[in-house]
């Protein structure tokens, strides 16, 4: 985990100047520690996702940055100034709330204008900026509607416009897509990403959906029980998960609880050469790293095994196989779609694809 934290800091500094700095921050509600010693940097212009199960503390972290909660220990800095001591209304941070939190007594236009009106902006400027913001989210024609008359996706757009019109340095998004159905969700994901690129605003995005996190983020901060498990780019975190938890949470994997003896790892019927001292070790082997032996040329650095096909899940371009290597050891294998299969087959994987992970 240490190595990945170091490399993620490097990634942050290469993307731009540090905008937000969370320093050794902890948060407890009574005796319950919700966040434990979190240190995290967000670079200017970055799309960073806080990913975790419910109860992992991701929303609390977001609320601390927004100013709705006070840290129990540690500090938050933004652009060189202390942030956590400011009330929420003095932070150059805006939030898109989980259920949008649009003001029901105000029209779409008034909702979007709220932040400017509060700051006593001139009427002409409010008019111009509201129109621009509504056009940006394609909601101009609904300017005079009441929020209750809008669909979830439309409310989402209004919430975005309402937050972005204030030109925040950092936009916080609290599971903004979780209330949308699958198709709309995909569409909004793509629009969000496009918007973020276009505006260059830093996004701090909270989700429990690892697929969404992978698709959108520059970096993912995976939280587990209030602590940072790993912070890295989606590709890095997928290819080199630091822990068994990360490997299982991000994408699908086969966790091989093995025993290393004399340079050979053993797990059930699987045997493959590996470096490292003798003793127990856990490896993560992605389903797509396993192939049919017939498809692969005989090459050094591969491991072979025979297994009986138990289940086959078709999902369009690919299918997932569940195979029994014998002795109740089940492995998941992802292959490109090739029609119904059955019986025993020989499989192969590159030993380099078995990634050693921590418990």
């Amino acid at each position: 985990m240490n190595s990945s934290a170091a490399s993620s800091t490097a990634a942050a500094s290469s993307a731009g100047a540090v905008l937000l700095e969370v320093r050794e921050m902890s948060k407890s509600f009574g005796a319950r520690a919700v966040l434990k010693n979190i240190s995290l940097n967000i670079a200017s212009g970055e799309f960073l996702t806080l990913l975790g199960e419910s109860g992992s503390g991701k929303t609390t972290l977001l609320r601390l940055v927004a100013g709705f909660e006070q840290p129990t220990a540690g500090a938050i800095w933004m652009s060189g100034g202390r942030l956590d001591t400011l009330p929420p209304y003095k932070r150059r941070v805006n939030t898109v709330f989980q259920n949008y939190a649009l003001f029901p007594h105000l029209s779409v236009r008034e909702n979007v204008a709220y932040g400017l009106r509060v700051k006593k902006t001139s009427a002409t400027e409010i008019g111009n900026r509201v129109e621009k913001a509504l056009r940006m989210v394609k909601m101009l024609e609904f300017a005079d509607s009441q929020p209750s008359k809008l669909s979830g996706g439309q409310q989402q757009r209004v919430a975005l416009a309402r937050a972005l019109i204030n030109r925040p340095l950092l936009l916080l998004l609290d599971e903004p897509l979780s209330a949308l159905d699958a198709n709309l969700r995909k569409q909004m994901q793509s629009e969000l990403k496009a918007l973020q690129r276009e505006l260059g605003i830093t996004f701090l995005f909270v989700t429990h959906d690892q697929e969404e996190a992978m698709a959108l983020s520059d970096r993912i901060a995976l939280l587990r029980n209030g602590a940072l498990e790993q912070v890295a780019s989606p590709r890095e975190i997928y290819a080199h998960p630091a822990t068994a938890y990360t490997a299982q949470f991000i994408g699908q994997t086969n966790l091989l609880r093995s025993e290393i003896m004399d340079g050979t790892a053993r797990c059930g019927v699987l045997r493959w050469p590996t470096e490292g001292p003798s003793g127990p070790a856990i490896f993560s082997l992605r389903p797509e790293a396993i192939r049919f032996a017939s498809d692969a040329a005989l090459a050094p650095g591969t491991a072979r095994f025979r297994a009986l096909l138990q289940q086959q899940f078709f999902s369009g371009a690919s299918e997932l196989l569940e195979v029994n290597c014998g002795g109740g050891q089940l492995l998941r294998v992802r292959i490109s779609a090739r029609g119904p299969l059955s019986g025993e087959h020989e499989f192969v994987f590159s030993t380099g694809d078995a990634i050693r992970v921590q418990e």
Partner: protein
Amino acid sequence: MYSRTYKTLVSSSPLLWVGLFLLLPYTLMFAHSFWAVQDGVLVHQWNLHNYLTLFSKSLYVEVLLRTMRIAASVTLCSLLLGYPLAYYLSFHAGARKELLYQFVIVPLWVSYLVRGYAWKTILGSEGVLNGFLQYLHLTHEPVAFLLYSPFAVVLVLTHIYTPFVFLPIYAALEHIPRPLVEASHDLGAGIAQTFLRVILPLSIPGLLAGATFAFVLSLGDFLAPLLVGGASGTMIANVVQSLFGAALDWPLGAAISVCILLVIISLLFFTERLEKRWSFK
């Protein structure tokens, strides 16, 4: 889906209740207001005489106006007490919320009469308050206006009806989703702006309901003026009571009641429309 007998059975008791205790009395009252009394005997002779008397005699108009003034004062005072209390409880009381809520509710279980008499012992010339003022040498003789005055009536009615104002406002405030308050802060609004732009507008239905309670209940109150009002604190319900009682002029009493009823119905009509205008899903 349901049989006719079932529907009849279910609807009969409320219909009977409304018919016997609402429609019938109101019809009788309405009819009485157009009848007359001659030599102490009720004459079923249709005329507008009662209404003419009502509006030509300054006494009735004066009492009616005073009653409205008192009711309006009570409404204002109980709003000024009830709203901040409800606001504090809903937003800032934290763990003490339940306990404080009970403190507001418990007085409702104490009889109206007991509370009325309690104020009598506090406000009277030999009362607690006057004793205290003299003990502090702020006054040398009892302050007279404390008891038997419109002031005393407003005080007692405010004490009695503030919980009624508090309750709907508190319910309205509790129904405001907290993310809306956070969103307002998030968008740069401080505490005062958030109150004026979000919390107050969203609590208007509760505020109207509370104000209507206080006004309508005060308008028809006759116990508080009887206990602490004196001659200068007489309200319209006391007049109606005496017309139906000692004065034995039911038709005039009925005419006044019809007027009060009209005031209340138009008020309810008005506030209901306002409440609808300010209700949001």
